């Protein structure tokens, strides 16, 4: 197990170097004329050259990459043209908001998806099962930005049950930052009003993001429940008269754990990608919205930084998932 863990961690370094090169090429080489973009459309040739010299854009590409990567290692992602602030600071502010949303939607997906799949598996081929199957298939085809708008329309505008957008209302001040997750920070500070509001603000965007994962985990859970119920040992225990609820709990709970891991492995990247859409719909001040605004303003430093940050989070999340797989199933870790 330890060897497997070390092996996996050792693999991260080349991956990160490759990722930074890829992102660098997309952000600095692809646009063709980054200095011209930074200087703006009305700049003179001299102004452009001055900017190119200032940002080191007149240097050969490998030199530029070296400068960039040493800067990143020191926590310097350059400045945003749009906000005029260092990108690293912006990122530190926006990343926790995105992660809070991603975690909360994973939590919702597990909370809702596992029981759904379990019910569908137990009542296989019943009307309930069919309904769940049709629902999950539709859920996977639902565009998130459309779902978000519909939820806003129904629960925010027509019923006025839940807030439309943002993380907190203007009148409530955010809790002092510890983790950057408003729900956790407000609990640490003992501020129940802020906790209540931040939770209410989370529900719609998290539900929007969770719909497709709910469908997937329900499908995984359904088929693993069916598989378990057909096993000989389960049939034997049934014949011995053990209550089905006990049998289910005993074997299916283990499956629930591995279904959850599979889901997280499958969906972390997808969720991080979809924050771009969901954050736009709900004006959620995370890195997705930040990246979108940066792209629309042709502001490349934030785009590079966000892409890199998402890649790193994705790599780390997959590492954790793979390690936990190893814990759950020793066969996996013995392979390497």
């Amino acid at each position, binding site marked *: 197990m330890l060897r497997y863990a070390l092996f996996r961690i050792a693999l991260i370094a080349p991956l990160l170097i490759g990722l930074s090169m890829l992102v660098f090429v997309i952000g600095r080489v692809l646009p063709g004329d980054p200095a011209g973009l930074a200087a703006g459309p009305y700049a003179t040739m001299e102004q452009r050259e001055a900017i190119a010299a200032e940002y080191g854009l007149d240097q050969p590409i490998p030199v530029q990459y070296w400068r960039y990567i040493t800067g990143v290692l020191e926590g310097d992602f350059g400045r945003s043209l749009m906000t005029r602030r260092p990108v690293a600071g912006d990122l530190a502010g926006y990343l926790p908001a995105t992660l809070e949303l991603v975690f909360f939607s994973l939590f919702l997906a597990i909370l809702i998806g596992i029981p759904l799949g379990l019910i569908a598996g137990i009542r296989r081929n019943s009307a309930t099962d069919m309904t769940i199957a049709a629902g999950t298939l539709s859920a996977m085809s639902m565009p998130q930005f459309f779902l978000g708008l519909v939820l806003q329309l129904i629960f925010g505008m027509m019923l006025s049950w839940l807030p439309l957008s943002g993380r907190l209302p203007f009148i409530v001040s955010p809790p002092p930052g510890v983790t950057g997750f408003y729900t956790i920070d407000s609990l640490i500070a003992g501020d129940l009003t802020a906790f209540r509001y931040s939770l209410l603000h989370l529900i719609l965007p998290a539900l929007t993001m969770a719909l497709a994962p709910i469908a997937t985990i329900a499908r995984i859970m359904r088929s693993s429940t069916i598989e378990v119920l057909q096993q000989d040992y389960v049939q034997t225990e049934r014949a011995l008269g053990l209550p089905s609820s006990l049998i289910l709990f005993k074997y299916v709970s283990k499956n629930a754990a591995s279904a959850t891991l599979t889901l997280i492995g499958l969906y972390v990247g997808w969720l991080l990608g979809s924050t771009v859409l969901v954050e736009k719909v709900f004006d959620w001040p995370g890195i997705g919205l930040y990246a979108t605004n940066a792209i629309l303003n042709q502001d*490349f430093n934030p785009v590079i930084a966000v892409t890199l940050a998402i890649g790193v989070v994705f790599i780390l999340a997959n590492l954790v998932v793979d390690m936990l797989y190893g814990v759950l199933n020793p066969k996996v870790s013995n392979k390497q």
Partner: protein
Amino acid sequence: MSEVVQSTGSAATRSARRTNWARGFYRFRQNPLSVVGLVIVVLLLLLALFGEYIAPYPEHLNGELNVANRFQPPSAEFWFGTNEVGQDIFSLVLAGARISLLSGIAVIVVATLIGTFIGVIAGYFGSWLDEVLMRFTDLVLTLPALILAMAIAAGLGPSIPNMILALALAWWPGFARMARGEVLSTKAELYVLAAKAQGGGNTRILTRHILPNITSPIIVKMSLDVGFAILAVASLGFIGIGVRPPTPEWGVMLSVSRSNLPHFWWTAIFPGMAIFLSVLSFNFMGDGLRDVFDPRARR
């Protein structure tokens, strides 16, 4: 050896192929949802080709405004209502089918070409070439496709061809991995070894013996991916990268409609339903095709 079989048994092969098609269609029909998906997909493709001609208000597609009729609710005159400049939303949604569907299909075709090329080269030639190409593929996979496509699209600048290229450049790794895996298993088949033993060159073996035998899984993946590519095109339109207003693209229409809610809900609901329906129907159809080509995946 394969040459001999081909030359003597072409009639038999043809009839065997026909039986295969019949069997495939039978399997496809077994799943009613796939048939529904296929019917809707065919309808959508017809709309994509001829939508402009049956639109009740074709002049609105060329940007003509009718401000006197702005924000009309759905009625017999305007089936889906009108938008903020009085254009008929039904006409716009019909015209949007062309951009969304054709872009989605184009993304998948380009991604398939790139991915299959890389995957086949990696799988067939193996050794260091395989290592380099596959590590690069893994690297691209560490970034969520949408984020990667956004970043590339931002670098390339806004236009429909650039958006298609950006999405394809984010989409090919799945095809590369699949093609490589298929080539690896096909490469070991006896007929490939036989062709090699007869002195067949790499190009001939690849194009005559390997490619024809890896097409069906690739076609299945293509059909399963088209729905998601349509979704991705609409997503980029919604964000504001790629197709720009006033081009009638479904994602763009949804994005514009946000400021019209809640009173003018029809400006959002109909384009949104159009996206949902086309993604859903492609997914249903793709499921059916998978049943046909890969019966093992059936449950």
